[in-house]
């Protein structure tokens, strides 16, 4: 009986190392480089146990959607104190597509626009 466990989120980028450096600088993601059997380098990120792969986008692969759309829209990262995180993220040069707001009592969110228009939601749960 198959069971499914979470494995990874997969991003594509024309410049995977530049994208990896962004997540490292902004979200303190750990960059893990590994060499594949074919000699290519694979770049993975680890954000406190969350694995994100960053693959080289092929020349003919289009940009992703900038705005909300059907299907896989974004992913969310939890923070303990959103206001504190937002201050630090601005210092680090992050661009916000949605400024912090309280959705309802006990739930605050904001959206950062990462490289290739990836939207990263920040979530504080009270």
């Amino acid at each position, binding site marked *: *009986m*198959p*069971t*499914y*466990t*979470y*494995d*990874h*989120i*997969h*991003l*594509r*980028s*024309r410049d995977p190392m530049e994208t990896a450096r962004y997540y490292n600088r902004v*979200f*303190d*993601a750990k960059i893990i480089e590994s060499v*594949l*059997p074919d000699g290519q380098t694979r770049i993975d990120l680890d*954000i*406190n*146990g*969350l694995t994100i*792969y960053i*693959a080289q*986008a*092929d020349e003919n*692969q*289009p*940009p*992703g*959607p900038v*705005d*909300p*759309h*059907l*299907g*896989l*829209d*974004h*992913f*969310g*990262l*939890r*923070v*303990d*104190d959103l206001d*504190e*995180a937002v201050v*630090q*993220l601005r210092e680090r040069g992050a661009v916000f597509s949605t400024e912090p707001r309280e*959705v*309802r009592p006990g739930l605050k969110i904001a959206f950062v626009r990462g490289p*290739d*228009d*990836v*939207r990263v*939601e*920040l*979530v504080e749960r009270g």
Partner: protein
Amino acid sequence: MPSYRVDHIHLRSRDPMGTARYYNKMFDAKIVDSVEYDGRSWIHLDIDGVTIYIARAEEDQPSGPADPHAGLDHFGLNVDNLDEAVAQLKERGAEFYMEPREIQPGASIAFVRAPDDVRIELLERKNQSEN
């Protein structure tokens, strides 16, 4: 000092409950909750402790890309036995975007095409330590 950890993966659908039933049927995802708040509705799914939200898409929100693209492309689920999983998924009516194949010794993958062209990678790693 802020620190970040996974909170959720977020999908949008014109039919959130239909989409939730798909994940339940195919991957045995648990439908934890169905929430209505402030005129919006969304469903909370759980696959192995990871939260997937399915929000109702607004009328003017377009389809997502059907094929690989720059940015947030897909997410992956790990299975112990890919062949067994694929057989069961086919019985359950799953559509495959990529049939199973070995990408390197000990690592096999396949891609399922879920509602709204969400691509889900299935991975089997025979030797976890080498991958």
